[in-house]
C-alpha cells in the first residue's frame, strides 16, 4: 500500500489528558430540516418522507434549540431539504446560533445546500453570520453532476463558488464540497477537486450512495468492493493534484454504512489500533499523502439519540435513516414530536448524564 497507511499523529494534542477531560461533555450533534422542499429533483435523493406542511416556526425552533443547548447540544446542522429556499428562516436560525456561539465558543453550526441559490446578497449576509461550515453538493464534474441534478446545475453552482471566493475568501474556507459516491462518478472526482480548489476550497467530503426504497434500479449503487477501492485511492492521495493543503473526509454512517466500516476495519483502512478522537467524540484515522490528508471516520456503535439527533421540518425526532421512508412518522425510529412534548422529555431516556 502507499503513503500514510500507518496514519498520522500530526496535530495530536492533549494526549496526556484522560478521555473524559479531553472530550466535551457528552456533546450532542443535531441535524434538522428547516423545510421539506427543494428546487431540484435529484435521482439519488434519499428523502422518502414527502409531507410538506407543518414546518416549525422560528420561535418553535428557538425553543427547541435552547433546550438542546442546555442538554449539551454543540453541533447544529441545517441539512434540508434545501435551506436556501427558506432563506429568511434559515438566516434567523443562523443568527440565533451566531449569538449563542458568543456565549459558548465550542458551539458550531452550518448548513447543507445544493448551492444553486447562493447569490451575492446571501453570500454577503453569510459573511456576517460566518457559520462554521457550509456543505455544497457536487457529484463529480459537469456531466456526472448534471446527470443526477439536472442540466445546467453544475455551471451555476461552480459559478456561485467562484463568487463566494471573490466576495469573501474566508467564507470559501468554510465550504465543504459534499459528494455522493456512485457508479457513474467514482473516477471523476480528481477533475472536480482540481477545478473548485481554484476557488479557495480545501475541504471535500465523500459518502457512498445508499439506495432508498424510491430507487428501483441498480444504476447508481456501488458494490462494497468498488467503495473500498475508492477509499484506498482517496487515502493514497490519488484524488489530489500537487496542492498540499487539501482535506478529504470519507464519511460513514452507522445505520446505513456499517458493512462498509466493517470491511474497512477488516482491510485495515480503518485501523482500530491507531484511532484518533476529536473533542466532539468523532473517531477517525488520518492519512497524509502528497496533496493533503484523508480522514475516515469510524462509528463503533450506534449513537442515535445519545449523541446524534435528527429533527424533521415538522418536529419529529428520529435517526437519519427513518427519513428514507414515506411512512416516516409511523416508524419505530421516530420517538416523539416537539410539538407535543419538550425535547428534554422526548430524549430523557436516551441521554447520557
Amino acid at each position, binding site marked *: 500500500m502507499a503513503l500514510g497507511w500507518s496514519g498520522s499523529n500530526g496535530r495530536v*494534542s492533549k494526549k496526556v489528558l484522560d478521555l473524559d477531560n479531553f472530550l466535551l461533555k457528552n456533546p450532542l450533534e443535531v441535524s434538522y430540516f428547516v423545510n421539506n422542499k*427543494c428546487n431540484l429533483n435529484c435521482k439519488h435523493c434519499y428523502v422518502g418522507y414527502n409531507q410538506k406542511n407543518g414546518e416549525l416556526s422560528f420561535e418553535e425552533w428557538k425553543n427547541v434549540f435552547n433546550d438542546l443547548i442546555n442538554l449539551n447540544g454543540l453541533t447544529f446542522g441545517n441539512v434540508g431539504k434545501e435551506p436556501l429556499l427558506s432563506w429568511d428562516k434559515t438566516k434567523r436560525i443562523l443568527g440565533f446560533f451566531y449569538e449563542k456561539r458568543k456565549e459558548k465558543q465550542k458551539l458550531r453550526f452550518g448548513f447543507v445546500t445544493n448551492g444553486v441559490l447562493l447569490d451575492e446578497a446571501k453570500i454577503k449576509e453569510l459573511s456576517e453570520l460566518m457559520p462554521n461550515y457550509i456543505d455544497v453538493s457536487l457529484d463529480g464534474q459537469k456531466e456526472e453532476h448534471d446527470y443526477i441534478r439536472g442540466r445546467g446545475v453544475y455551471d451555476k453552482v461552480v459559478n456561485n463558488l467562484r463568487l463566494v471566493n471573490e466576495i469573501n475568501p474566508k467564507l470559501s474556507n468554510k465550504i465543504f464540497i459534499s459528494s455522493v459516491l456512485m457508479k457513474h462518478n467514482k473516477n471523476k472526482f480528481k477533475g472536480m477537486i482540481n477545478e473548485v480548489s481554484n476557488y479557495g476550497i480545501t475541504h471535500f467530503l465523500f459518502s457512498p450512495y445508499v439506495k432508498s426504497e424510491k430507487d428501483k434500479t441498480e444504476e447508481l449503487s456501488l458494490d462494497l468492493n468498488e467503495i473500498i477501492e475508492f477509499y484506498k485511492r482517496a487515502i493514497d492521495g490519488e484524488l489530489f493534484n500537487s496542492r498540499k493543503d487539501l482535506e478529504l473526509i470519507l464519511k460513514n454512517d452507522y445505520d446505513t454504512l456499517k458493512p462498509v466500516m466493517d470491511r474497512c476495519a477488516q482491510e485495515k483502512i480503518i485501523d482500530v489500533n491507531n484511532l*484518533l478522537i*476529536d473533542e466532539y467524540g468523532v*473517531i477517525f484515522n488520518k492519512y497524509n499523502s502528497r496533496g493533503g490528508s484523508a480522514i475516515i471516520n469510524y462509528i463503533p456503535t450506534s449513537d442515535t439519540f*445519545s449523541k446524534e439527533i435528527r429533527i424533521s421540518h415538522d418536529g419529529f425526532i428520529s435517526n437519519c435513516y427513518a427519513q428514507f421512508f414515506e411512512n416516516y412518522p409511523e416508524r419505530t425510529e421516530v420517538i416523539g414530536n416537539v410539538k407535543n412534548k419538550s425535547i428534554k422529555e422526548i430524549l430523557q431516556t436516551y441521554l447520557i448524564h
Partner: protein
Amino acid sequence: MAMGFSGSNGGIADYRILNYSELNKFILRYSIRLNNEEERKKEEGLIKELEDGD
C-alpha cells in the same frame, strides 16, 4: 438531499489518540440504551468497573 446524511459538521476539531481500552469505554457509554433501566444500570456498572480499573 442525498449525502452524508448529517453533513460535515465542520470537519475534525482538536484531537488526540484514542487507545483501545478507551475505545471500549466509549462503546459502552454510547451503546447504553437508557429506556431499559436494568440494562442501563448494568452497563453503567461496567463502565465504572473499567474506570476504577484504570
